[in-house]
């Protein structure tokens, strides 16, 4: 088993807000992230894939295919968009870094031919990232 990681980047707006809470409660829990005008980040996505090396091609997976899948399933949907307002999975869940990692896992799981998704790592900024391994 060998692990292969491909990066992609997207820049998006978001805010943190629970509809059933008061403004005061949202601001107490989420601080400046609760500003309804939104704010944004340059996100870095790292997708780690596990598989065996093909004895002929020497590949675990065709990286061009992975790049195209990331573009189609994630970057084209998230990049230069407002996550809360324009991405379906965040109409009902808050686009925290943790939830973005889970959402990207769901978008990619089973889509990469011949290899298994191992980890989704999402950097909101260089000093903050979330990992999801598909665990329940």
């Amino acid at each position: 088993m060998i692990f292969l990681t491909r990066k992609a980047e997207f820049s998006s707006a978001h805010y943190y807000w629970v509809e059933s809470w008061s403004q005061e409660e949202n601001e107490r829990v989420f601080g400046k992230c609760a500003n309804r005008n939104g704010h944004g980040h340059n996100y870095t996505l790292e997708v780690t894939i596990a598989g065996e090396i093909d004895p002929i091609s020497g590949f675990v997976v065709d990286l061009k295919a992975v790049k195209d899948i990331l573009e189609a399933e994630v970057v084209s949907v998230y990049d230069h968009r407002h996550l809360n307002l324009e991405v379906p999975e965040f109409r009902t869940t808050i686009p925290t870094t943790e939830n973005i990692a889970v959402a990207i896992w769901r978008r990619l799981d089973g889509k990469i031919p011949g290899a298994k998704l191992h980890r989704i790592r999402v950097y909101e900024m260089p000093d903050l990232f979330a990992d999801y391994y598909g665990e329940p």
Partner: protein
Amino acid sequence: MKAYLSRRYHFSAAHRLHTELYDAARNQVVFGKCNNPHGHGHNYTVQVTFSGPIDPVTGMVVNLADLDAFARTNLLDRFDHTNLNLLDCFTTTVSTTENLSIEIHRIFAQFPLAHLEQVHVEETSNNSFDFAGSAAPALGRI
């Protein structure tokens, strides 16, 4: 769903690698320039990883405001712009980054709101150390 959240903190501190259990010559042989008498310093980076279920309402494993406040009080206020050798935790052990990693793990293990998986400490961009406490890191974690 179980997820992992990692946060990086930065502090700058002086230290000197030296032990009273060796004589001066032995200290110089073992620790080299790290044993120079007046000490030297580094910009340290600490990366802490916590795990837990994602709260279904807040979407969080841990609220960063809580973690940052804890780190400010228990890590940065204590270590930043200090001489590590003068701190209580290094009165009997050498202030290597290995020992620093163990001390930082001890500190963050006391954070009450999520489970500490491991700490990663970078002394320079070329040297880093990982410590997961008595438990070995879970298999398959990379």
